[in-house]
């Protein structure tokens, strides 16, 4: 199919608390639409929904945006890594990633942070096993995961103390 033959639909996406109108093709993937909008923290790593580098939150749930149609995201709250933190301050989980050295090349990091955040938002006292399960859809080739587990657990503990 040629570009000009495809119908384009205007959708209103709620991204990081803002409403953004965008023209999308019916088959457009949320990942591509976000990256086109300049939100490039979500990465493509595999095209088969196995690596999780494209993870974003939809209504607070971690999803692989490379397999979500942009049209399907209408009416849902989309959160990307760029929306984390406020007023130039990092979100606490981002700080714990830095503190624990839970990133090396950083390519998987936005996805890992969002998957970790979704876990702790839903389960404020996760066990190590809970963290392993929550991050099972996110691959990392650099860190060996341990520092990531520690960062997420420390963040959950710090929130529990508040």
């Amino acid at each position, binding site marked *: 199919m040629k570009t000009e033959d495809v119908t384009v639909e205007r959708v209103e996406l709620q991204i990081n608390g803002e409403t953004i109108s965008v023209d999308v093709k019916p088959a457009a993937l949320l990942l591509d639409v976000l990256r086109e909008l300049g939100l490039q923290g979500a990465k493509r790593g595999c095209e088969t929904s196995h690596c999780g580098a494209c993870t974003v939150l939809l209504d607070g749930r971690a999803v692989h945006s490379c397999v979500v149609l942009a049209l399907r995201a209408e009416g849902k709250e989309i959160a990307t890594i760029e929306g984390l933190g406020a007023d130039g301050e990092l979100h606490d989980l981002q700080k714990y990633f830095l503190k624990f050295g839970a990133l*090396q090349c950083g390519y998987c990091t936005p996805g890992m942070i969002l998957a970790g955040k979704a876990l702790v938002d839903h389960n404020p006292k996760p066990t190590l096993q809970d963290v392993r399960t929550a991050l099972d859809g996110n*691959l990392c080739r650099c860190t060996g995961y341990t520092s990531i587990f520690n960062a997420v657990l420390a963040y959950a503990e710090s929130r529990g103390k508040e």
Partner: protein
Amino acid sequence: MFNVIGRPIERVDGKSMVSGRAVYGVDVRLPGMLCGKVLRSPIPHGKLLHIDVEKARKLPGVKAVITAKDVPSRRFGFAIQDETIFAIDTVRYVGDAVAAVAAVDEETAEDALGLIDVEYEDLPAVFDPEKACLDGAPLVHEEMTSYLPNRGRSPTWKPVPGTNIIHQAVHAKGDVEAALAKSDFVFEDTFRTSQIHHCYMEPHAAVAQVESGKITVWSCAQEVFPIRSNLANLFGVPESSLHIIATKVGGGFGGKIAPRLEQHAIALAWKTHKPVKIVMTRPEEFTAAAGSAPAVVYIKTGVQKDGTLKAREMRFIWDTGAYSEGLPPSNRALKDGIGPYRLPDFKITTTLVYTNKLRATPLRGLGVPESTWAVESQMDMIAHRLGIDPLEFRLKNALDDGDTNSVGDPVYSIGLKQCLREAAMEIGWGKPKGKNIGRGLALISKTPTTTGSISGAYVHFNEDGSAQVLVGASEIGQGSLVALSQIAAEELGIPVESVAIVSADTAVCPFDQGTFSSRVTLYTGMAVKTAAAEAKKQLLEIASQMTEIPERDLEIDQQKIISRKHPELNLSFREVIERAHTNMKPILGKGWAGGKGDWPGLPHKMQGKEPTPGSKYGAQAVEVKVDEETGVVTILKMASAHDAGQTVNPLALDGQIVGGSVMGMGYALYEKIQFEDGKVINPSFMDYKIPSSHEVPEIVPIRVEVPLPEGPFGAKGAGELAGLGVAPAVANAIFDAVQVRIKQLPLEPETVLDAIERKT
């Protein structure tokens, strides 16, 4: 005591990474940028009879379709110049580049690829490296002997004319045959490994722009300067016409050391006069990028009754696939092949063979994972046969201070035995264990790179008094930017926050061979230290002129110049730098470090041809459980002890140790690129499994710090070490658990189960 060295300082580039703002190769966007795609051969070996691109050219949105006819026909290559931009007459593997397209978007570019008609004539192909060595095997490169080596990379290149053997080399000491004949026992075994993939999370990505004859490339490259020289030579332009900027690199592990798609992006940008971006898909990564160099390792060891090693003979057959980037791993095995042991007589032969498959390239430890797999497995077999504890057997023969290593250099600054003892203790070596539980050990060592590798650094000061460091080596995730900032800060006596660092931009940074072989902390680090020392000296000279206090009485404290003799002195860096500027004598410290004998401060006379300061040592210990019903091996615990010299940053070092251990676990247990008639049949993360969050066991990183006198503040570096010994340690633990010996990687359940069944 150090101020900042050895402290767990957060990454200086970390904030942009955790907030999604770091710009990787895949993120680069330029106005008017086109999307490039490469058409690749679907057959493993064939004549290229005809290419028709007309239909593709006519597709609306397509801006260029190019083939070998449109680009320079010069050969290029990382080690040997055996490759062209596009296949000219022959395709040599499923994945060989045949044509490329630039179009307004990805979809159009992909559609255009489908419209290119290529007519091939199948040629007989060869996939097995041992069969490829036989007389009458189909030749992968008929014109091999006309190729040229790439300057500096392969000074000892020796092809065997009329065969697929692109390189053969021998390294020997003493008389191995006589020594084997005199040994009480001789052990002979053959071990095999599989080709694995680097699986960096960011696929290869490059953007090229050509304007007024100047080429600019943004690429997730590990080595910007060598890649620039390679490309300059290929396109027939001087290096000064090529500007390469490393973006953030989403993992490398050796996979991003050579031009992979930069040449296609440049050719398309040249043709279209527009910036062109190419990003590999994940299947393309598995089928057309590169993997490790798998080996068949024959090993024969002579040993005395009391467990003293006498002699070792090793023969490696390396499968380099269709192009010769497997040469560095094959040469590396000459140096490190026999392992970190006292061996008065040895002989190592390596044979690098072309096959019609995905190419090999260096992968984290290049060649040493394969040699360690053989040596450390056999060491265990010998220990059991002699009835000696594998730990004691290793300790008895391991290199120590005052020994001579395999390249003839004196051994010093070595924490090898301590690494082994500590790792073994951590997993409860010698303690009672349950049924089907086993423990295994492996020693690890690697000598530093010797490919004439040079690193430079410049240090100057910004007007605000902060130090500005410029280095040419890429940060590929290991934390070199923070480590190098710490080294500069320590030397200058300022906090890390007062150091700004820029890296891997050929127009701005001093020359550096790049990021490979665990060399950046050591070489670039030493260059930074030297440059910072020179900058400090210049700073104090000016301060001395300003204050009329002798330099020897001046000190640096938190970006201020102070003096104990003159407590009233309070001179800021900013003031000194202003003076330097008004005097028209700006401060600039330069530092260089590298191999080939010009290592700064090297106190030892090197006996070998190539000096080897900065050998790294370590030991791996694992505890496993083997399910006798299914053959599934579960790693319960890993302890990885490393003598990386003085730790620069424990967060980064532990990250290398734990991350390397987990990569080693994938290599040990399940990673394997699978081929069917030369075609990769598992080109996705669904079918090619890497360790995920579920499988990671408890991992204990152990730092054994024996400072290296020539290293920056005693550091040695550590990037590759942790992955090297996992596979043999696991195989040894499997033997300990269920008494079966497996000599083929990976240690898959079917293989283990088969061995268990054959035993009973």
